[in-house]
């Protein structure tokens, strides 16, 4: 099913677009298509002794094949799964050093439940890794320790060359969904712009660094360059299906919106010509982009909505001021943006049809830009606020208009982007020196630095 949807998406993208092959890197290695089976109970959830989140133990996976590769994968899976599960704080964890006294299971059928019970574990995640003809087979169980019942069981099979971390990400998302009814983000990715390669812009006597578009797993692993345009490429945004990235590129001297279809190594031009166009934001259905353009001259910038194929441009805002930084509401009915129509930039919301008066959202900021609208179940807008010499990330609740601040002057912080479950925000910060990508929970906890090489900025978090 998943594969057929994927194939359909590729086929339709190839059919509908005048795609370019020029200057594209080889396709990003396609995601391994691990197949899954659910051999045991479906939809069962662990029960908890007392209150609070379930207490889990996640020991290393068991290598059923003795070769070094399988052993290495087993070790990676246990660590990555721990990190993935810990990211959402839906479970409590029994520290791993406590496990040392417990005999390691050699299969899924010799689990010493009594010992785990002594540690007050509500659940035990145990997995095996085995070499098979098709490549690698990973089998995972979540046992309810009290009843010795398997409440979750699944097999994942894929090519041996596949990225082993991905198995752990899939397991984590499956456990969050079945046990906590939560859409985890372990399989999502973050895209950003980076000058890490130290390449210089050509056609200028100034010393200017090329910036290219990169992607990374949500945890910062597997950072991969996806454009080779040799120019300024900035403000990447994932398409809702996670297969394309729209970005602003200065390849022809004038900033234009391009789309890279990263798994096909093809590129589309959404805008072209002599007008400048910036900051593409996808509609939730992936058919349209909202962009900012100063094309009318006189220093005014307004928002436009354009079809993905570059047709059907229409003006969304029409105000003699700067109107920029668009983001769609999750339903697609509204667009938030920033405008300096009253002097300094502030966040506004307007209907996606452009009808009606734009409504101002930020009330007490001296300067607010780059709104990003959280997905359900939250209804919040995160934005960049000027708080002193630098900027900080703030979040406003759209129902109560209460504002909370996530960063507090540690370097300058900007360009927030929500994770697809609304629980996390990626942003750019100078707190570690150069500009780097960080993630932080919507509560302001769990700060994590994802990038370290060169300057990295303008993050966007994939929906899938």
């Amino acid at each position, binding site marked *: 099913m998943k594969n057929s949807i994927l194939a359909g998406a590729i086929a339709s993208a190839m059919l509908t677009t005048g795609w370019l092959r020029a200057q594209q890197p080889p396709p990003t290695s396609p995601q391994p298509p691990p197949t899954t089976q659910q051999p045991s109970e479906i939809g069962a959830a662990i029960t908890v002794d007392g209150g609070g989140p379930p207490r889990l133990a996640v020991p290393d996976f068991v290598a059923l094949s003795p070769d070094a590769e399988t052993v290495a994968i087993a070790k990676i899976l246990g660590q990555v799964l721990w990190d993935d599960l810990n990211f959402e704080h839906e479970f409590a964890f029994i520290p791993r050093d406590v496990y040392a006294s417990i005999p390691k299971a050699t299969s899924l059928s010799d689990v010493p439940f009594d010992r785990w019970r002594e540690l007050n574990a509500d659940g035990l995640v145990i997995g095996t890794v085995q070499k098979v003809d098709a490549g690698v087979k990973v089998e995972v169980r979540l046992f309810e320790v009290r009843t010795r019942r398997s409440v979750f069981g699944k097999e994942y099979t894929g090519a041996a060359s596949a990225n082993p971390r991905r198995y752990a990400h899939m397991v984590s998302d499956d456990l969050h969904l079945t046990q906590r009814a939560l859409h985890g983000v372990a399989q999502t990715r973050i895209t950003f712009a980076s000058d890490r390669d130290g390449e210089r812009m050509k056609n200028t*006597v100034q010393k200017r660094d090329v910036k290219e578009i990169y992607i990374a797993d949500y945890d910062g692993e597997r950072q991969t360059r996806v454009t080779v345009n040799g120019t300024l490429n900035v403000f990447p945004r994932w398409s809702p299906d996670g297969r394309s990235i729209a970005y602003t590129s200065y390849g022809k001297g004038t900033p234009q919106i391009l789309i890279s279809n990263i798994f096909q190594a093809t590129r589309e031009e959404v805008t072209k010509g002599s007008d400048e166009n910036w900051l593409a934001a996808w509609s939730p259905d992936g058919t349209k982009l909202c962009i900012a353009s100063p094309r009318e*001259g006189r220093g005014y910038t307004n928002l436009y909505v354009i079809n993905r194929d570059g047709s059907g441009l229409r003006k969304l805002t029409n105000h003699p001021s700067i109107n920029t930084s668009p983001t769609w509401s999750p339903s697609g009915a509204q667009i938030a943006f920033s405008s300096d129509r009253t002097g300094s930039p502030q966040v506004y919301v307007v209907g996606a049809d452009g009808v009606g008066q734009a409504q101002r959202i930020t009330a007490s900021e001296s300067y607010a830009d780059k709104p990003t609208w959280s997905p359900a179940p939250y209804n919040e807008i995160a934005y960049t606020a000027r708080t002193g010499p630098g900027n900080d990330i703030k979040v406003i609740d759209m129902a109560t208009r209460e504002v909370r601040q996530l960063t507090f002057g540690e370097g300058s912080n900007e360009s927030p982007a929500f994770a697809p479950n609304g629980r996390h925000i990626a942003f750019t910060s100078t707190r570690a020196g150069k500009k780097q990508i960080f993630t932080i929970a919507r509560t302001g906890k769990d700060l994590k630095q994802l990038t370290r090489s060169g300057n990295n900025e303008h993050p966007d978090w994939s929906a899938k």
Partner: protein
Amino acid sequence: MVRRIAVILTAASLAAAAACHKKAPPVARPAPPPPTSTTAPTQPPAPPEPMREPVVPAEPVRDDSIASASLDDLNRNSPLKPVFYELDSSEVNPAGQKVLDENATLLKRYPAWAITIEGHCDERGTAEYNLALGERRAVAARAYLVAQGISADRLRIVSYGKEFPFDPGHDESAFAKNRRAHFVITAK
């Protein structure tokens, strides 16, 4: 006025120059004279010397380095100076007006030049808003030049926001250099 001086020079150097006037070095088209004051000459100019064809005076003989430089060399040490702006502002202040006046003079002297006006910002504003602010700065510089009689067709605009700071520092002296309209000669 100029012609009278030329005539005097011509007369003074007649004997020396007569033999070699055909080899006189080429010179660039001189700059148009500044507007003369309202005091018109009270006497009619002296009649031209009838005997010989006037020769070009030996001076100036230097090359016009601006006219002969490559585009890259020109831009590396550009005669077109940048205009600087205040924080969050795209207003051309008196110092900026002076720079633009000088740039307009050069653009009139070299009518074949086409330029791109780049708008830039310091790092304090956001990356996103700064694109539009840089645009506004470039537009303000262009509007001033157009008001000085420079054809808008010669003045392309692009905003880089804060993507290309001129000074990588993080203090006000760096910021002041980075809030600028930068002029790039793209054709000559």
